[in-house]
């Protein structure tokens, strides 16, 4: 009997669970030095297994577990394989980093750390299980396992009330999403007969109203996890609350599980899409992206900035998914494949650069115990490793070539601009607007990243004693280096990546991009035709390196020795302090002014005669007041009405059940012949 990818993947999942359980037993120091590297190794193995499975066909397995008559089904196809690869690749970098990151916690809070190992391993294992589950029941079990383990990871520092609140909000949204998913699977199965296995659902197609309802429920359920617009509120709260490697896992990998779920339901289980589904997704996704990036640009908390940027990136991904759905519904499979490839590529890229940045933010946070940008600055001098590796991350996130963020956004832009003839003429006219939003989002993301990097790493420190700040250790360097290497390689060899993505797009929309994209050799990427657009990152990279090198050499050669040191013109100020630098708030000020209508802005501007001026400004999410608070008030009112029933007298309570009994009996009598 030969080993198959699914067996390997199943063993890895069990291995993760086993290592987690082991973490409860062995001492914390051993857990950190031994178990986390083992988890890392298993993640790397998972990446390999995923890549292996990406080459083959579907493979199924029925486990002898589960409810009576409802065994657990496993299935590995190329879609699962792609996301398993993502999980393994990003997971191994993050776990390696975590080995070093949790050193302090393992020494001071051994008990908490032992629980953390278990939850961390379970989190990874449940995400992997979500990807291979092949019936609705098992899927929901894994999905909830993922939500619960991440909830407990988010509330690792549960002594802090703000973190408990963030955790509660996260749990609430996760449950709302899970209810929507439960109903969605119920609708998918309705009338199919038999069990809830995906194989049954696949052959059973819904039509008309119920099909649209299923789509909407899936959108709510997975959208709540992905941070789609009105359901995004947990994301900027929960990500900063979690320990940084966990934030990296959640943002880099867990959000992609929502994408996987949407792809699975929309392209695999549900039948032919209606045209407005795609349009809705494109609209909501673009809005989410714009909203997220605007809020990212005005944050001054480093992790909150990254969390809002995750909202933005998920928005881009989902808008691309909407585009895929739109083209797929209209039968334009080539363009659909292009958009889908862009979506998958961006998902992979986001896992790498956002993971990298969260790890970088974690290092800063760990070294300085400060997450407010207003207090940071000048860290490049004491944390050169973090600064250097984060630079790769921010360049990728800002979408600059030759790094990986550029290539996927560029592909998405191509998909927008290609504009085949859709049956709805007005959509043809509106879609370029999406491209404009994409461009705006890209520019604002660049702005946010300049702010992130400039304020934290450049300039002078704003109140920290830099001498006490240390750079990261070996494990952290390895973890961040792994993620940065991923950003670079994914950016430099796009045609190889697209060839791998081809197997997925072939299965989902029946078309591939590889044939045309790699037509001009592995050096060039031409998504549609050479006459339209082509891109060669390696040549671009070489040009950048050569021109920078030549300039450097030229300056050294011709100007060396001819400069002199003199005091700079001080603008009339005899002295300068670090507080005169541009601050995080100050840098975001233009955005705050221009997009004021987007923000719930409250500002206190001191009077000009105040001897101790104090400037305070707060940016609130307006959707919180528009969507959530009315809901909370409504529920509150309803609960108060129920509270009237609570009289405290047993006789009254007995009377309630008595009258209910009588009413029901009377009802039964009425139905009898």
């Amino acid at each position: 009997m030969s080993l198959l990818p699914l067996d390997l993947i199943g063993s890895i999942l069990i291995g993760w669970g086993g290592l987690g359980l082991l973490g409860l037993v062995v001492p914390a120091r051993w857990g950190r030095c031994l178990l986390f590297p083992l988890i890392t190794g298993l993640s790397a193995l998972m990446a390999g297994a995923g890549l292996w499975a990406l080459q083959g066909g579907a493979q199924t397995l029925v486990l002898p577990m589960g409810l009576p008559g409802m065994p657990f089904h496993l299935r590995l196809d190329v879609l699962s394989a792609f996301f398993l690869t993502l999980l393994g690749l990003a997971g191994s970098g993050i776990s390696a980093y975590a080995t070093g990151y949790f050193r302090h916690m393992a020494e001071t809070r051994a008990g908490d750390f032992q629980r953390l190992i278990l939850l961390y391993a379970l989190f990874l294992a449940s995400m992997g299980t979500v990807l291979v589950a092949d019936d609705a029941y098992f899927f929901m079990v894994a999905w909830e396992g993922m939500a619960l383990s991440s909830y407990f990871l988010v509330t690792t520092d549960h002594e802090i009330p703000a973190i408990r609140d963030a955790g509660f909000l996260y749990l609430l949204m996760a449950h709302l999403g899970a209810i929507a998913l439960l109903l969605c699977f119920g609708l998918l199965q309705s009338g199919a007969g038999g069990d809830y296995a995906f194989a049954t659902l696949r052959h059973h197609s819904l039509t008309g109203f119920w099909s649209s309802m299923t789509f909407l429920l899936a959108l709510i359920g997975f959208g709540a996890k992905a941070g789609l617009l009105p359901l995004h509120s947990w994301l900027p709260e929960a990500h900063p609350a979690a320990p940084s490697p966990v934030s990296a896992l959640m943002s880099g990998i867990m959000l992609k599980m929502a994408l996987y779920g949407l792809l699975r339901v929309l392209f695999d289980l549900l039948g032919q899409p209606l045209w407005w589904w795609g349009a809705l997704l494109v609209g909501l996704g673009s809005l989410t992206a714009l909203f997220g990036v605007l809020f990212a640009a005005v944050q001054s908390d480093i992790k909150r900035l990254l969390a809002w940027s995750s909202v933005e990136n998920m928005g881009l991904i989902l808008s691309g998914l909407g585009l895929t759905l739109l083209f797929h519904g209209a039968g334009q499979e080539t363009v659909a494949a292009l958009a889908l490839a862009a979506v998958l590529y961006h998902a992979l890229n986001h896992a790498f650069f956002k993971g990298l940045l969260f790890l970088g933010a974690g290092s800063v946070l760990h070294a300085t115990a400060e997450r407010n940008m207003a207090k940071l600055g000048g860290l490049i001098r004491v944390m050169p490793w973090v600064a250097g590796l984060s630079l790769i991350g921010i360049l990728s996130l800002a979408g600059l070539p030759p790094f990986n963020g550029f290539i996927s956004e560029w592909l998405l832009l191509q998909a927008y601009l290609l504009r085949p003839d859709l049956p709805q003429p007005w959509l043809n006219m509106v879609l370029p607007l999406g491209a404009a939003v994409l461009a705006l989002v890209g520019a604002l993301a660049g702005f946010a990243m300049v702010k992130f990097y400039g304020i934290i790493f450049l300039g002078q420190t704003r109140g920290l004693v830099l001498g006490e700040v240390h750079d990261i250790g070996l494990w952290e360097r390895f973890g961040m280096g792994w993620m940065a290497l991923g950003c670079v390689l994914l950016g430099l060899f796009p045609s190889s990546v697209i060839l791998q993505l081809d197997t997925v797009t072939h299965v989902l929309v029946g078309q591939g991009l590889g044939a045309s994209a790699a037509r001009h050799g592995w050096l060039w990427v031409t998504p549609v035709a050479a006459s339209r657009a082509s891109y060669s990152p390696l040549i671009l990279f070489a040009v950048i390196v050569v021109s920078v090198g030549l300039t450097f050499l030229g300056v050294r050669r011709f100007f060396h020795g001819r400069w002199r040191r003199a005091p700079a013109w001080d603008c009339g100020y005899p002295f300068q302090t670090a507080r005169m630098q541009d601050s995080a708030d100050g840098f975001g000020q233009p955005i705050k002014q221009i997009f004021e209508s987007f923000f719930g802005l409250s500002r206190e501007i001191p009077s000009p005669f105040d001897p101790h001026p104090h400037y305070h400004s707060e940016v609130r999410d307006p959707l919180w007041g528009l969507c959530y608070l009315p809901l909370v008030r409504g529920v509150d009112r309803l609960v108060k009405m129920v509270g009237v029933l609570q009289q405290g007298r047993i006789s009254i309570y007995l009377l309630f059940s008595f009258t209910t009994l009588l009413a029901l009996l009377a009802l039964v009598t009425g139905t009898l012949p």
Partner: protein
Amino acid sequence: MSHWNPAPFAQQLLDLFASLLLLIAFAMLSQRRILTLIHLFAWQGLILTLSIADSAWLTHQPHLYYSAVLTLIIKVLILPLLLHRLIRRLDVVWDVETLINIPTTMLVGIGLVVFSFNLALPISHFSSTILRNTLGIALASVLLSFMMMITRRKAVPQVIGFLALENGLFLAATSATYGMPMVVELGVALDVLVGMFIFGIFFFQIRETFDSLDIRHMEKLKEE
């Protein structure tokens, strides 16, 4: 008549027992003294026992004899004895105050009996058992016991009401389906016993906390 057919007589006897049960239910509803209430409860248990034994004889269902013996032991002997000891230990032999006055309670009770007979009528048509006439009475005694729990202010009469309700349910089960499976009956009997013990413990706890068994004191436990 060459040989005497016992069926019509047993049938008449069964109806007699059922109506006695209903009568006792009414008596309990109107009774203000706790000691008498316990005696009435014991009588009701005895009537129930006889009624079950009678049905067993009538329908040749041997397992009904077991449940008759079970009822006799638990409901006629053990529970009244326990209740007796309980009220002596708690020293609560006072008269029972009711929330609604007795005549009104009785009038409502009559309404309940009419309702349950009306309810049982269509069901009796379906039922193939010989005991179908008693279903209405069983339902009525369930509702009357429930009513008693509602109208009493002290904890002990409420518990007696609960136990009497269980009697009515037993009768309903016997009359509709020739009794429940033995396992279920044993389970229910055990439940009643355990419930009785728990109630007893609660009584002491309640009295310790509030210095009284009047459940009005528990009204302030609700959330403001």
